[in-house]
């Protein structure tokens, strides 16, 4: 393209972005159209990908288009395959896009729209995208090695083990919290339960189709599956309208939690082709399709933002999760801004597909930018709801009271007016019994999406849209649950193998059973406790997940910072060291508050002591007293887990700083841990 034309396009994007941001800034006090958020964010990400990532690519990574990538050198036609950059972009984006950036922003909306939007933008541009891209770059220059292997090579055994423990911990907490989100969405909702249950036989059917009937015809199988999934949404409505069927699919949270745990175990030991692989195909199509649809609907409809820029809950008294804006906004948003989990994918399948080094900027940085944009859209979906409705859906009964009149009175007294009638009418429109205290983020997101879809494509189908959105979330949450259990199982088998060698053999059936049981038991425990917690469970589990995820991000940034410093690029080390320092500050502050706060709504040990005192004084109602001992134990366990995360972060960071200091002080020659240069043969 002509150089002048290119410059003109970039100036256009910059002006458009500035205008959108200006529109948001100048409209304070009036209602703002959601389109401005999406446009402003998209422009910011485009400019950052073009210029900041471009600068990092040229100066820090010094990407070299003439250097053969592992995909070219080690091409085996299977995992190492040079692939067109847009195809790799699609693969990578589908792999990193998950439920986190949907749930996190939904919860963080309790602070108002401004803090969440700003951190999604700033965190992704300076932190998350940089992390993903730098890890990918390091892996490409090292034959596609994984983060765990690079941590061992660059930081030594301590860093390597820490990365492994971090990965295992994050998998377990992640699965528990996502399981909780699904359970809460299905509780006492026959329509949702039927639709989500139906996804299992549908996936199995598609699995058999793709393996036995038309082997490898992925698109045919997926098309049939997606059609059946849509039918199951409609079928749920039919079930909901028939009293006998309705009763058969009407479950409480505890029963559903046991279903999810049993499902998780069975899915983990079934062959991949039968359930996991077809579910993965279906969830990818449904996910990409729905995200696209949401973007189109926001563009068509232009809904107004109803949430204020800042709410009173920045002071730490938030009903959805407790704690002040700093550090808990950053812990809560986690995935949409910086996600440690992405470092595993960026050093996993993706670097083995990259055909040309210069593609890393688009694939590594660009995919995360798009993921963050999805987070902005989730935030928009939460903020277009009436704030009173938003709080009524997302606040647990333990906080505002189980009775609709009490709950609405409490929420109205916070300055967010809502009435019981309004909630009843909304629930009826969505085809649900009630929308009070539907914690976990999924129902609120589904109501938000249904309102947007309903207004953009016809209001008559609100209940259908609502349950479509629930199905969309459940399908890929269950995929993550399956895949995550498997990842944790391999790590577990590896660890068990050091105790007794045969247990380390991945395909030995007793080892598969034992390690699956251990992994499912671990996340099942947290899921069960989350379900019996009258405060909704998400209040405890989501911050724990956020801390674990940011810990993994800190490990990833530590590895790449060590690489930069020791390869003689000290003056560019701030590119990764600055986000690392921020993460260490955030995770340390959050962990310390969770450990030492006197406020039982924030501190784990304070909560345990508070509940023990109330139990001893007989101040708890009987149904709460019955579960109190388990909740007290769990608060203490969470406390110790948080302490472990905190210690891990500091061990890794100090170990890295020591290594870099020794390297610099002894004026050692730059360390080259890359595979040697080979010129590319690709045209």
């Amino acid at each position, binding site marked *: 393209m002509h150089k002048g034309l290119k410059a003109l396009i970039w100036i256009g994007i910059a002006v458009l972005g500035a205008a959108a941001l200006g529109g948001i800034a100048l409209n304070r006090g009036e209602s703002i159209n959601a389109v401005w958020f999406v446009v402003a964010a998209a422009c910011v990400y485009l400019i950052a990908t073009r210029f900041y990532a471009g600068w990092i690519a040229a100066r820090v990574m010094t990407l070299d288009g003439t250097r053969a990538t592992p995909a070219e050198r080690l*091409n*085996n*036609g*299977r*995992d190492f*395959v*040079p*692939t*067109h950059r*847009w*195809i790799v972009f*699609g*693969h990578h984006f589908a*792999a990193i*896009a*998950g439920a*986190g950036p949907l749930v996190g922003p939904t919860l963080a909306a309790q602070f108002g729209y401004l803090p969440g939007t700003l951190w999604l933008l700033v965190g992704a541009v300076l932190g998350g995208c940089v992390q993903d891209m730098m890890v990918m770059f390091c892996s490409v220059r090292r034959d596609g090695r*994984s983060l765990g292997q690079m941590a061992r090579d660059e930081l030594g055994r301590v860093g390597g083990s820490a990365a492994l423990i971090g990965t295992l911990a994050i998998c377990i907490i*992640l699965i528990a919290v*996502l399981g909780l989100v699904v359970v809460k969405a299905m509780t006492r909702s026959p329509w949702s339960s039927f639709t989500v249950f139906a996804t299992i036989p549908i996936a199995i059917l598609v699995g058999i189709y*793709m*393996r*036995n009937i038309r*082997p*490898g*015809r*992925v*698109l045919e199988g*997926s098309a049939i599956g997606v059609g059946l999934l849509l039918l199951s949404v409609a079928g749920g409505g039919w079930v909901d309208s028939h009293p006998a069927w309705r009763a058969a699919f009407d479950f409480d949270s505890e029963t559903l939690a046991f279903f999810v745990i049993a499902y998780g175990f069975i899915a983990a030991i079934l*062959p*991949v*082709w039968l359930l*996991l*692989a077809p579910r*993965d*195909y279906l969830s*990818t*199509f449904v996910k990409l399709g729905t995200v696209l649809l949401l973007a189109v609907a926001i563009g068509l409809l232009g809904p107004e933002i109803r949430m204020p820029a800042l709410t009173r809950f920045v002071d730490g008294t938030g009903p959805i999760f407790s704690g002040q804006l700093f550090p808990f906004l950053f812990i809560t948003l986690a*995935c949409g801004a910086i*996600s440690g*989990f*992405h470092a*595993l*994918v960026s050093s*996993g*399948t993706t670097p083995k597909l990259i*055909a040309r080094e210069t593609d890393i900027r688009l694939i590594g940085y660009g995919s995360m930018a798009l993921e963050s944009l999805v987070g902005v859209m989730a935030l928009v979906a939460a903020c277009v709801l009436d704030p009173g409705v938003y709080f009524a859906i997302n606040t647990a009964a333990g906080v505002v009271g189980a009775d609709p009149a009490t709950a609405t009175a409490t929420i109205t007294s916070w300055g967010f007016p809502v009435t019981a009638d309004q909630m009843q009418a909304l629930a009826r429109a969505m085809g649900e019994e009630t929308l009070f205290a539907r914690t976990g983020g999924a129902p609120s997101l589904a109501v938000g999406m249904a309102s947007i879809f309903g207004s953009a494509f016809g209001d008559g189908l609100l209940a259908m849209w609502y349950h479509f959105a629930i199905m969309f979330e459940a399908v*890929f949450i269950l*995929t*993550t649950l399956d*895949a*995550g259990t*498997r*990842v944790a199982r*391999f790590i577990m088998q590896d660890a068990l193998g050091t105790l007794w060698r045969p247990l380390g053999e*991945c395909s030995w059936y007793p080892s598969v059973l034992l390690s699956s049981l251990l992994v499912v038991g671990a996340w099942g425990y947290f899921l069960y406790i989350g379900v019996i917690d009258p405060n909704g469970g998400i209040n405890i589990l989501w911050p724990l*997940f956020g801390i674990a*995820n940011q810990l993994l991000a800190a490990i990833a940034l530590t590895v790449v910072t060590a690489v930069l410093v020791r390869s003689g690029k000290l003056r560019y080390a701030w590119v990764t060291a600055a986000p690392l320092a921020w993460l260490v500050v955030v995770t340390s502050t959050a962990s310390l508050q969770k450990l030492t706060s006197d406020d039982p709504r924030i501190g784990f040990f304070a909560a345990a002591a508070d509940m023990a005192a109330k139990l001893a004084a007989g101040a708890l109602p009987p149904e709460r007293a019955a579960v109190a001992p388990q909740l007290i134990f769990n608060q203490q366990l969470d406390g110790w887990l948080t302490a472990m995360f905190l210690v891990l972060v500091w061990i890794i960071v100090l170990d890295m700083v020591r290594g870099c200091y020794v390297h610099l002080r002894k004026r050692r020659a730059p360390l080259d841990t890359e595979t040697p240069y080979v010129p590319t043969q*690709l*045209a």
Partner: protein
Amino acid sequence: MNPRPGTLLTRAWRALRQLSGDDAYERYLAHQREAHPHEPQLDRRAFYEREQERRFSSGPTRCC
């Protein structure tokens, strides 16, 4: 790698097939013919099974 010339629609279709892995077997056959012409080739079903097993046993494929 190099998209053969074609209309926009056929190119989009080809991209979709590659993105979803629908054409994985054909690409495998092409690779085998070129790189290992004398080795026996897996049939469609065996290849599909092996690929799915590999895909989900080589580290995280899906994120939070």
